[in-house]
């Protein structure tokens, strides 16, 4: 996977100015079309959502959602056709199953399940696009930033510091007696 280029650093954000960043995956036939309709109808909603178009909500791999969160999204919205209306018959049901499993997993990971939302929005429901996006933006604002990249960086620093410490102790103590007899190539050295 390619590394994202690091463009000019964003202005140092005042925590009070913080506003959630939401990545959305919209299906081509219903929800993306509904978002187009919201535009054509000149409805106004929060500018916090970035939409990625897919042919079907069934294409949404849970990894897309986790990757978006890992890369700094505060929430993820998935939009598909209403049950029974899927352009591909039942892709939305497949997404529903994944969503329910993912919700459990998010809880286990310590991420609030509200940060991942699945909505059925038909091509006629421009108004619902507006409502869902506004609602979700408010909800995530109340929850606060997820900030996974920052947390990763902190954890990385801790692990690196720990690893250095272990290395230093190993170097001072000399070879480990348990492994001195037959050191295997590529084997990790334990403290």
């Amino acid at each position, binding site marked *: *996977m*390619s*590394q*994202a*280029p*690091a*463009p*000019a650093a*964003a202005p140092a954000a005042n925590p009070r100015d913080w506003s959630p960043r939401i*990545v959305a995956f919209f299906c*081509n036939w219903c929800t*993306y*079309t509904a*978002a*187009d309709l*919201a*535009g*054509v109808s*000149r*409805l*106004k*909603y929060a*500018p916090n959502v*970035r*939409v*990625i*178009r*897919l*042919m*079907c909500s*069934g*294409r*949404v*791999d849970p990894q*897309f959602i986790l*990757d*978006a969160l*890992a*890369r*700094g*999204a505060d929430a993820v919205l998935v939009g598909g056709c209403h049950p*029974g209306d899927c352009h*591909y*018959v*039942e*892709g939305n049901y*497949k997404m529903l199953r*994944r969503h329910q499993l993912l919700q459990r997993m998010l809880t286990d990971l310590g991420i609030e399940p509200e940060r991942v939302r699945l909505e059925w929005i038909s091509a006629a429901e421009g108004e619902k696009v*507006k409502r869902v996006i506004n609602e979700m933006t408010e909800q995530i604002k109340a929850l606060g930033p997820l900030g996974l*990249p*920052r947390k*990763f*960086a902190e*954890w*990385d620093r801790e*692990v*690196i510091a720990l*690893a*250095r410490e272990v*290395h230093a102790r190993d170097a001072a103590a000399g070879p480990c007696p348990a492994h001195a007899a037959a050191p295997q190539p590529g084997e990790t050295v334990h403290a």
Partner: protein
Amino acid sequence: MKAKRDEVRIGFYVCHCGHNIAAMVDCAAVARYIATLPGVVLSRDYKYMCSDPGQELIQQDIREYGLNRVVVASCSPLLHEHTFRGAVTAGGLNPYFFHMVNIREHDSWVHTDRVLATEKAKDLARAAVERVVHHKPLEIKKVPIHPDVLVVGGGIAGIHAALTLANAGKKVFLVEREPSIGGHMAKFDKTFPTLDCAACILTPKMSEVGSHPNITLWTWSEVVKVDGYVGNYTVQIKRKARYVIEDLCTGCQDCIAHCVYKEPKFDDLFNERLGKRKPVYIPFPQATPQVVLIDPEVCLNFKRNKNPDGTPVVSDKCKKTCVEACGEKRAIDFTQKDQVVEIKVGTILVCTGFKTFDARRVPAYGYGVYPNVYTALEVERLVNASGPTGGQVVLRQGTNPDGSPKNPRSIGIIHCVGSRDKKTNLWCSRVCCMYSMKLAHLLKEHTGAEIYNFYIDIRTPGKGYEEFYNKLLEEGTHFIRGRVGEVTDWAMTPEEEGKLVIRVEDTLAGVVRRIPVDMVVLATGLEPQADADAVRRLFNMSCGGDGWFLERHPKLAPVNTFTDGVFLAGCCQGPKDIPDTVAQAGAAAAEALALIDKGYVEQEPNTAHILDAECSGCKSCIPLCPYTAILFDETRQKAYINEALCKGCGTCVGSCPSGSIVQNLFEDAEIFSEIAGVLADEPVAAGRPGNLTQAAIP
């Protein structure tokens, strides 16, 4: 990946769309920002990208700057992706090296803060620039279309569609499961609101179907299997045994006259069981084709117990006077078996119609309990000159003073039986108000009886329909507003003795009334065919929650289904009257013609394929595909995708545990880089946490 990034030369264009975008997005700032991204050779803002000069600009730049990727940030791709792909192609690039960013419908039109809207435009544009690096050249697939058409169902919809197509020179297979075409319309006496005789307008069309050189008519036949995809369907049709060789039967009906049963004895289904027929019969005088058939359930030449597979056993116990009567023609063949024939067609028209609501499901109205409660379809046969009584309206129970079967002196017609009712069906069947009034008129004409209509609302949306209602009011037909509570034979006064009493709350007068009548007619609603769900699966269509077949778009694609090349017409899509059915059949035929005459279908190359080396053979993708496009190679233990069947939803891709399925235009790498792109404005050490940790440990 690094090498690939060096090779790409991206041209980026941001469109002002007049003021539509430029008023809310600082287009020049977006262009300046995108110019700083790696791989971007050129970044411009322009007033109207979709204009001819705008498209010309792209083509020139491709040639001049050697661009090999193009990104345009403008309106919705659903609107102009096609336009810009064309421009990119004209510039000499593969059209799939293009990606479009929606900064109008999804940005400038829906936001009010110019700074934030500009930031959003930058994010979206950056995502596209990240994504387009991974794009691959793809080919548009052109699939040729077989010119023949299958029409399923020989009611008025199927007949009209088949004739339209056949007259345009296309070969049509018309398959009907009953012994004759004609459908429900053939049973009607008159049609509303013009009161022209249904047979007079239908039978010329039926015989035209029977004799048309371009139509192959298969009645007493059913579609059993459909394989393939738009343009190339392989269909198996079961031709049920008639025990009469169609090509040899001349329709003389001598066999019927000479049957050992001197009198008709068995229920005549065409006449709604009001009449009788013999074991060898023709459903009705104008039946098309004019070919008799033998009912092995009752014919003496068959045993009453059947083979284990359900096929009848010939007993040879009958004198076979029918065979004698047929003589030299030798059309009767008791050894005939069901046959399955296979045909190839390019398009399919589904015109499978409806069934009427079973009035027994509303027990309070006493259908099946009181003999003189009729359904509307029974009354259609009763008033029909070719019906079981020759057009005489006589009751099942009771006699006139002279001993002849009783003619009704008063008739109650109950509307909305099995329609607009939470206990049965919620929908309005659309035709019942009008046909009830038509029957009221015909019954009055035939019997001179007092007619009472019990209605909830009178719905007459159609040309000349309201006028027909007014005419009925002038004729002196009584209209009582209220849903009938009960039909009973329990008399409370001497006048009610021997009559059926309709109990109803007259909601206009605000009183509960008891109306004694001789005959009750139930205006039964329309329902999806009993096997609609099986038929839906057969043709890979969808049903709405109510069971009617679902059209692709209620307004803009009313005869298309979600399966390309399969079209709908008539009541299988929802209740409608004859004019609407015929109009829809014509539309379906026109849609099929447009497809056939083009000669091929273009397919968006967003299909999926499986990377053979990566596939673990777990088969978890196979049941996910709604199009059964994923197959399993048992010898190699690998799944593979029939790309002709794949519609490109990507459901299998999203669920493959080994990541071995790739969807063109929506590859994992493309989507992950798009995610990275929209989120990259915060300088983060992107990537999955695990990778980062290991890499960073000294």
